[in-house]
């Protein structure tokens, strides 16, 4: 029998989530185990055994395992990678530290800059030089490189990043030097900037290449163990890895370019939102995920998450933008702010309440956990307001204390400000919502979008608790809460097509492009993509190719991504490219482009397989009571606590419909619906909450 199961696995900081789908019936099973930090493959094995048992299927039934991990991010943050050296063009070993000569905070004179992965004494130079057009100004001297190999060997280097100026234009020097070093330094991993990220701007390219080679050994070892676990379980399934961009790649690619996996966890979350959006006819969504320490927001457009080409990892100073290492790699574009359930509330020097960015995390945790935390957090406020049930936290597996929450809020917020505990708790709840709404609004405007047009997709432990008010603040009229939000992101693994991204920089003005060169670049990238897809078993007729280019007006600093037509390009088709640019420009900036020449920085290709079919069904249909009780819950519309019905998420059925105010509880989260909300359960068991003037007008 043909294997029929596909498995998505997400390794998070606390839990390893797994979802298993029978592609014939659409039935899905979920499993959750504690993450085994020392050897994550062990936790994966446990989760897999649990899932297979639920499904009643042997491991041979698994067709594919798709996996995302925070391993790369953690290895960089904790600086657990290899002893890594950098080799640069003569005169530029400090480009990676001089960076952009910039302070990311205007007034704070105590800021810190991110530390490059290779310290200065492990940064070496080669006396070679290319010019901006890729021509050779000074060739590589092999004797010099051989001497360098000896110095690297003596320094005990385990990994090397080679980053020469203008290698995005001509990789020959990097390759030549790599060949010599590889021969003399067997076992040492080498990454070339022209291969990891062939894009202009030396600081960002170097930072990315260093991060890549720094974690390579760890990722290789981990992927090998994971593959072995699968084999030992008797599975011959293909192991595939999720990229930060939401694409999927082979283990081989993941081993070569681990830096492309940094945001693979959040990417799956965004894909889950995109999937549910497509399923329910909502191609545009604002995915809003709120966990313990941070909240993330991500726009889904036309069924796809927005993609960025650069982001930061390891922010070293108060989570501030600019204090992290830049990574140039395609990634789901998201905005992340220090506002989670564990974010600590305090009164600042003006007598105003501030939330975060400090977080109580899980250790010592919010005051209500009783694990040693004494400072008031967002979760404490949510508990005091009646949004959380102290007896049904994590499905009742963990007891939390309302008294401890009240005490902390009283001591640190209410008393200093002369507020009641309730007023203080509402202030905390409300302010964190304001912060998240502001961040989401900025995120949208950075893309020229009006956030009000996007239904809110709520996930994460705290997301559904806050979604209603965040939507209200943003002027959003509809909220979507998926079933089993706790494993929501692992669904994303199964909803993504197999896809490979490529990019080449070749700067040109649109009126001066050398189209033969560009045709060759595109051919090279597309052939590579098709070959990789073929190796992963995708038939050639199911491959689709999407070309884009990063273009801008001469003198502009920000490029925009413009679709490029397929087929052979030439001067006679420059008009098509020009019109495509003008369309995108007008969409973004609401006005015609000024009469300035257009320039092209990079050329991109996405080669992807077919969109997988996925329809989910619960293994067991609900049979019990929908409504499990009633409790007093704080809604300012009623001027205080209001007796509010509490629903059991697992007993709701398609077609169910009721008005707010309401509380809907599931094991990993609680959905809070205010008085203006009306809840409907759709055929896929999503809660669809509409905010209107009708439905639940105040009755107090």
């Amino acid at each position, binding site marked *: 029998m043909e294997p029929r199961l596909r498995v998505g696995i997400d390794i998070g900081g606390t839990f390893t989530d797994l979802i298993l789908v029978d592609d014939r019936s659409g039935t899905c099973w979920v499993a959750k185990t504690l993450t085994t930090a020392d050897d994550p493959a062990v936790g994966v094995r446990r989760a897999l055994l649990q899932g297979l048992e639920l499904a009643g299927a042997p491991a041979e039934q698994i067709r594919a395992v798709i996996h995302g991990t925070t391993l790369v991010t953690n290895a960089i943050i904790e600086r657990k990678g290899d002893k890594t050296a950098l080799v640069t063009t*003569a*005169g*530029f070993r*400090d*480009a990676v*530290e*001089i*960076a*952009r*000569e*910039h*302070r990311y905070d*205007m*007034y*704070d*004179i*105590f*800021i*810190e*800059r991110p530390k490059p992965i290779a*310290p*200065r*004494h492990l940064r070496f130079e080669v006396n070679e030089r290319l*010019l*901006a057009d890729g021509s050779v*100004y000074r060739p590589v001297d092999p004797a010099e490189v051989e001497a360098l190999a000896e110095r690297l060997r003596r320094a005990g280097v385990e990994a090397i990043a080679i980053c020469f*100026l*203008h290698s*995005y234009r001509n990789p020959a020097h990097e390759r030549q030097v790599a060949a010599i070093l590889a021969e003399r330094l067997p076992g040492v991993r080498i990454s070339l900037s022209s291969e990891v990220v062939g894009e*202009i*701007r*030396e*600081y960002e390219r170097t930072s990315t290449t260093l991060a890549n080679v720094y974690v390579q050994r760890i990722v290789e070892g981990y992927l090998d163990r994971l593959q072995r676990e699968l084999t030992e379980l008797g599975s011959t399934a293909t192991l595939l890895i999720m990229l930060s961009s939401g694409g999927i790649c082979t283990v081989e690619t993941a081993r070569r370019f681990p830096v492309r996996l940094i945001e693979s966890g959040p990417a799956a979350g965004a894909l889950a939102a995109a999937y549910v959006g497509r399923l329910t006819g909502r191609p545009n969504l604002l995915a809003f995920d709120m966990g313990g320490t941070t909240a993330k927001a991500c726009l889904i457009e036309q069924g796809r998450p927005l993609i960025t080409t650069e982001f930061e990892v390891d922010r070293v100073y108060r989570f501030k933008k600019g204090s992290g290492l830049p990574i140039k790699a395609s990634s789901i574009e998201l905005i992340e702010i220090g506002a989670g359930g564990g974010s600590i509330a305090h009164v*600042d*020097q*003006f*007598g*105003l*309440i501030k939330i975060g960015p400090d977080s109580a995390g899980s250790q010592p945790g919010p005051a209500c956990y009783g694990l040693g935390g004494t400072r008031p957090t967002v979760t404490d406020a949510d508990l005091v307001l009646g949004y959380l049930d102290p007896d049904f936290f994590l499905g009742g597996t963990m007891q939390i204390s309302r008294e401890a929450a009240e005490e902390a809020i009283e001591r640190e917020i209410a008393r200093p400000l002369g507020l009641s505990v309730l*007023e203080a708790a509402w202030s905390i709840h409300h*302010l964190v919502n*304001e912060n998240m709404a*502001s961040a989401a*609004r*900025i995120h949208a*405007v950075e893309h020229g979008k009006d956030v009000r047009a996007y239904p809110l997709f709520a996930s994460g432990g705290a997301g559904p608790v806050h979604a209603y008010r965040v939507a209200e603040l943003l002027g959003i009229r509809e909220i979507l809460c998926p079933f089993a939000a706790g494993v929501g992101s692992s669904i994303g693994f199964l909803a993504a097509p197999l896809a490979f991204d490529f990019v080449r920089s070749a700067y040109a003005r649109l009126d001066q492009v050398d189209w033969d060169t560009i045709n060759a670049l595109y051919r090279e990238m597309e052939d590579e993509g098709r070959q990789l897809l073929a190796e992963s078993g995708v038939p050639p007729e199911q491959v689709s190719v999407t070309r884009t280019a990063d273009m*801008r*007006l*001469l*003198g*502009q*600093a*920000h490029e925009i991504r413009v679709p490029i037509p397929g087929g052979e390009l030439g001067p006679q088709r420059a008009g098509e490219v020009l019109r495509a640019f003008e369309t995108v420009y007008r969409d*973004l*900036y*609401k*006005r015609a482009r*000024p*009469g*300035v020449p257009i320039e092209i920085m990079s050329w991109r290709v996405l080669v992807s397989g077919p969109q997988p079919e996925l329809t989910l069904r619960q293994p067991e249909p609900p049979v019990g009571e929908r409504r499990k009780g009633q409790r007093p819950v704080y809604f300012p519309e009623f001027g205080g606590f209001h007796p509010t019905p509490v629903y059991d998420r697992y007993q709701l059925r398609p077609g169910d419909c009721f008005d707010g105010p309401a509380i809907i509880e599931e094991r990993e989260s609680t959905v809070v619906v205010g008085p203006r909300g009306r809840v409907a359960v759709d055929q896929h068991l999503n809660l669809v909450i509409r905010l209107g003037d009708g439905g639940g007008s105040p009755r107090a």
Partner: protein
Amino acid sequence: MAHAAIDPLTLEVFWSRLIAVVNEQATSLIWSAFSPSVAEAGDISACVFDSRGYMIAQAVTGTPGHINSMARCIQHCLDAYPLETLEPGDVLITNDPWKTSGHLHDVTIVTPIFRDGRVVAFFGNICHLADIGGRPFSADARELYEEGLFIPITKLFMAGKPNEELLKIIRANVREPEAVVGDLHAMTAANDVGGERLLEFMDEFGLERIEPLADEVISRSERAMRDAIARLPDGVYRHQVTMDGYDQPVTLAVTVTVRGSDLFVDYDGTSPASDYGINVVMNYTEAYTTFGIKCALVPDVPNNEGSFRPVHITAPVGSILNCQPPAPVAGRHIIGQWLPSVVHGALAQAMPDRVLAEGSSNLWNTQFVGVDREGRPFTMLFFNSGGMGARPNKDGLSSTAFPSGVQGTPAEIVEARSPLMMVRREFRTDSGGPGKYRGGLGHWLVIRGVRAGKPYRFSPFFDRTNNPARGYLGGKSGAPGVYELSDGRRPNPKETIWVDPETDIVIGLPGGGGFGDPLERDPLAVRDDVLNELVSLERAREDYGVVLTADLEVDWDATARLRAARRAAAAGEGDADT
């Protein structure tokens, strides 16, 4: 919803929203502007004012020279066009150096926002435009008239219609008309975005006016600033620095008087205005003075009318810090950007744990104009920064702009967009001033016009070649800047020169001063600096009294002996260095 007295929750919500509004305004500008000096360097600012012209909130971006200057500009706009003369769709423009941010390249756009036929707020932003006519951007002019087109406060739009007569004049005067006029439109659109969001906000909360909110924000900021000032011991604190100047040294002298919750900054004793374009208008003097005070006293307090009120700044009329028309001003940042460290020098006597040692201070702008081998014209402007001064508890940041907030430009972008080649961009060993906390390092920057067709013009904006950044509390000076050519010339660091394509321009950016006695620096930190070649073996011994073994481990006994001997010798000489 009425707000007799605004409660803390409502205030925080409103305030956050106002900041979100100006951030949105700024973001819109950054993403649609296309002058490289605006967008690549992030050199813009954006803020909102109430109908009285009080600044309430500014975007998280922005450079100090812009933002505080704009706070003053709005009053000048109101003088020129009182409220009753403005109608919906009007947009004001000016680059009057004395009324806004100090040179003609910075253009300010101000838009009144109407609600029910009444002005409820103003939005303003400033950009450094690609060109403003006159000489190429340089400090060489002897009069303002040489520096480009002067636009007094006037209307860019009248009731929604562009002022085509004015635009015609602008287009005819600048080198890159499309980019310049394009940016003017982007600036106007950014204010519209801010205005639209503000009106939505007012509708949402049923606010008729924002003045009550402004009063609350302003009075809280003022209170926080006054509290911080009141914590300083009353007294008179004097400080003085000497700069290279254009043709002769410039003295910047300051007297800071703390009296209760007011702080008086007076620049009496400062040199008279220069004959060349390095003069500073009073607005810009106030801007960088306030900035320095805010960094030291209340970095978290938002910049607004309230935080300015307790600070009283004066400078002699006709001095280089309060120059009068038609003094040339294009390179005003060279002087103005020193002011935070001048003020910190005085404040260090009252609050040594909250100030930086002197740093490289002004941006080292490099402007190039010429033709490439194919005869095509090129211009290239980028910003370079030396080391920041050491902090009371941390080393200074190397090669980092302070007080300016702009960014550098990648070598690959410079080379892709001009015939120039960056030969070297590498830290200058031993350039950071020794101290318990070391000053930031400057770097070597070597430029060659490798594909220039013939000699090109180079305009530098350099200082600190004769006057290094001084350390504080026993910290030593950073290395002074270096500027020379491979053909043997050592030109004036502020004068435009012609350079042959094969000649190297060699620039050594200055290092920052150290903080505290270098003999107290952790020997392991010195060892790390030597290992990383930030400090040489010789200087480790000479400046820090740290002895390292052949394999670069600390020789603890020898270090203790050497340091004891150094201290004894210093005690004998008395406190020589400050």
